[in-house]
């Protein structure tokens, strides 16, 4: 009798499990694809500087200290949204912040930085977007957290919000520092 009752409960249990999955799915953003490069070394790249006012960025520059690498472009509207936050972050000096200027014209990027401020220590110019593809970038802005050994530990897709920064990115940086 007991096992029979269990048998009838089975569909209810299966239904419950499915519901739990679907409920979880509702709060996931399907447009955010986690990086396939998590915990892997940053793919080798050696980008020229954006212009003679900036310092070039290569993958070897990312070894030695925890860094954020922000992939941005002047044509990218959400980049404009997160930019003030990057400026604030640069002032605090909590973490090394580098930029990859993705598929942009150097003069446009320069005008953009002159207008909004330049928070980056180094800026590599990825004119044809090949380095972006090597990094698995599929939409700007994207921000990589790279640890001291030059491994990618996390990628944030889309503009960074204050709460993303405080609740996730900065604590992660802090953790990687130790």
């Amino acid at each position, binding site marked *: 009798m007991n096992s029979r009752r269990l048998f009838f409960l089975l569909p209810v249990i299966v239904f419950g499990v499915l519901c739990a999955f679907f409920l979880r799915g509702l709060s996931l953003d399907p*447009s955010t694809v986690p990086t*396939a490069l998590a915990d892997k070394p940053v793919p080798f790249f050696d980008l020229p500087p954006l212009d003679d006012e900036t310092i070039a960025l290569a993958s070897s520059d990312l070894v030695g200290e925890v860094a954020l690498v922000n992939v941005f472009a002047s044509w990218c509207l959400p980049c404009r949204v997160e930019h003030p936050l990057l400026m604030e972050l640069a002032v605090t000096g909590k973490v090394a912040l580098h930029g990859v200027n993705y598929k942009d014209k150097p003069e446009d990027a320069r005008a953009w930085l002159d207008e909004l401020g330049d928070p980056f220590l180094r800026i590599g110019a990825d004119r044809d977007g090949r380095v972006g593809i090597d990094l*698995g970038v599929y939409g700007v802005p994207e921000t990589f957290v790279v640890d001291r050994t030059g491994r990618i530990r996390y990628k944030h897709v889309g503009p960074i919000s204050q709460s993303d920064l405080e609740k996730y990115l900065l604590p992660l940086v802090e953790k990687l520092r130790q």
Partner: protein
Amino acid sequence: MKHWFIGVLLSVTIAIPEAVSFENDAPLDDPVLEVRARELAKHIRCLVCQNQSIFDSDADLAKDLRQIVRERIMSGESDRAVTGYLVERYGDFVLLRPPVKPKTYLLWFGPAIIILFAGAGVVRFLRRTGASSGSPEALNSAERRRVKSLISDEEVD
């Protein structure tokens, strides 16, 4: 008049070729390799538009990825190597057809397992009800009389 207009609109929409995007690229000189590149591109997801392949998509990234597929095929790489390169960077999600591996077993075999269980349940149910009902026993004479009286009562009512 209105119908005619809608008809024209529809035909215009339908007449858009399968992949405008691919036509705008510079094809490979070798037609065999070009066909291979196109076939491969049909199975690679455009991460910007997600449910389109890079073959169909007009997104800038899709164009770049098509170019990479072409270059890699030109340089003599196998289809597997080319998709491997993309999967390394964008994950399995870049493949429109998810690979069969332990992580996706549930996805691939889940429906079959559910049908198997449901089928077993149905068979079990049919067997049980079939065994318990069978053909009913014949009525004895007393019961037959009772049925008759019940029926005639109803007719009186």
